[in-house]
């Protein structure tokens, strides 16, 4: 540290300001984070509140009732759409994450001709508006005579989420400290062992992140789903958009609230134990 006595310009108040400023800057991430989460969650609270709305409106409050929750449980089609969405989200996210991880590692770690070109092509679904991809996808499916249904829907969702999973794992893989893997090799581990016991665990947070992102993209997906869906595979967003013609009701709020609660519960149960183990190094 500088010798304070020898530098007359460093008066004690200036020092206090510096310390305060460093402390404030240090807290800057926390402040922004709190603001961001408030921003994300206040509308959510509004939605949850309106799920108890006594009228059909989702914007004008008229009183309290549980009726909408009852209706959710009685609505066969809504539950069917929900089941479809959940299954497709889990399956497409799992596949997308697996393929994305493997691809990201290949791009980051390995040398091969056309690497730049390939990594750009892999970003293609990001570049184009989803409607174009979706219509082209459908046309192609019909051309090769593939029956529309779960598999085309899952393929479509993987297509849409793959750039995300690849880039997320890629960002993590490139920030990884190679010396840890070198150390493992020095200690006698072969390639496979190093991969399984050092690389993958280090990448797990990113892989998990990618999985979450892919699952969410799939669950909320509308455009690709409209065109890639077949008979009996209506997903939740498709069902809800169709309800628009006559107006959506707080029944959808109720279902959304239930989904949030289930999700949060799942997080606490599954992640609580599992990820603490993963992240501990």
């Amino acid at each position, binding site marked *: 540290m500088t010798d304070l006595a020898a530098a007359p310009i460093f008066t004690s108040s200036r020092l206090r300001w510096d310390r305060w400023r460093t402390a404030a800057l240090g807290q800057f991430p926390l402040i922004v984070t709190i603001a961001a989460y408030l921003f994300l969650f206040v509308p959510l609270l509004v939605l949850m509140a309106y799920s108890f709305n006594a009228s059909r409106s989702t914007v004008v409050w008229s009183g309290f009732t549980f009726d909408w929750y009852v209706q959710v449980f009685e609505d066969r089609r809504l539950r069917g759409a929900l089941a479809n969405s959940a*299954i497709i989200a889990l399956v497409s996210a799992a596949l997308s994450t697996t393929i994305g991880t493997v691809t990201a590692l290949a791009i980051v770690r390995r040398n091969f001709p056309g690497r730049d070109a390939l990594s750009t092509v892999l970003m293609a679904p990001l570049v184009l508006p989803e409607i174009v991809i979706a219509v082209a996808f459908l046309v192609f499916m019909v051309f090769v*005579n593939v*029956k529309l249904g779960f598999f085309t829907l899952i393929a479509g969702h993987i297509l849409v989420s793959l750039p995300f999973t690849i880039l997320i794992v890629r960002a993590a893989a490139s920030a990884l400290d190679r010396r840890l893997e070198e150390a493992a090799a020095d200690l006698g581990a072969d390639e496979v062992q190093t991969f399984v016991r050092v690389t993958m665990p280090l990448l797990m947070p990113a892989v998990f992140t990618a999985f979450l992102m892919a699952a969410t993209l799939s669950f909320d997906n509308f455009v690709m789903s*409209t065109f890639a869906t077949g008979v009996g595979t209506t997903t939740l967003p*498709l069902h809800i958009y169709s309800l628009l*013609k*006559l*107006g959506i009701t707080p029944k959808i709020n109720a279902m959304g609230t239930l989904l949030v609660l289930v999700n949060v519960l799942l997080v606490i149960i599954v992640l609580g134990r599992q990820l603490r183990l*993963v992240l501990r190094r």
Partner: protein
Amino acid sequence: MKPRHANIRTVLTASAFGIALAALALPTAASAEALHIYAWADELPDEIVQDFQKETGIEVTVDTFDSNESLIAKLEAGASGYDLVNPSQYAVQILAKKGLVTELDHSKIANIGNISEVFQKVSYDPGNKHSMPYIWGTTGLAYNSDCIKEPVKSWKAFWDEKYKGRIYMLDNMLAAYIAALQVNGYSANSSNPDEIAKATESLIKQKPLLAGYNSTNFADLVASGEACLVESWSGSVINVMKENPHVQYVVPDEGGTMWVDGYSITKNAPNAEAAYKFLNYLLQPDVAAKVTTLTSIASVVEKSKALLPPEVANNTAIFPPEDKLAKADFILDTGDATKHYQDGWTKVKAAQ
């Protein structure tokens, strides 16, 4: 160390499990007869479908779409797997011209006589060759009487400076031109380029007064007072009217238009016989009455009106008075005039 292996294994197991689930959830080859319908979500209540299933034992799946345009695009790409689709009137014309729906064999629909006269001779599908009408409504305007004290009767209100910033038009080319053409005294189905150009001018003049174009949640906007005046389809606003008596739906003096949602059988429908049975079922007066009660939309079956509870039968938003309907017509597919409409609409949307 166990935890690390466990995680990769978990991911793989989860994927395998997921794929197994998906395989189980796939529609199995039904031993019962199956009928696949592609429809507007709330217009075909689940109860109606369930009743049909119980009566006939035919297993019905209903998938839903959000717009006629999506429906057309989906069918056009081919091999949809649906037997019955639920297009609006102008979409029927397009589907018919593209050969995507078959000609109906009326001999297979015993109840076809139950359709009221008005809907037996429709301009968009003479003789109901390609579609069977199901329900109908009007395109008009809705306003919030808290906001606009005098009753609104005409499209002219949409060009009134008084309501600047509180007006929404439907975000739909055909709907917007209904208002613009009729306010200028022309037919909503005009194919005259000069008339269309004049209507385009009106729409561009109107744009600074608008709060926006909205076909999605305009009912909520007018119910909450965010908007004072919105262009509206009758079905969309009926439900908010039940809750908020300040919301009024009006078929304007210039005429407005009627819309009809009907059913068509697709070309290469896997089970056309079941489709005919369903169409016949929908035309039963008691079933039609149930549909109207559940959806708050008028049915094409004349006899069903007598079976309705009074508050539904007397609802002028569902059943506008005869004199109002006389001036209304169906919005048709624009056919050869399409280019003029599209160019005009692009100009309107791009205008600053």
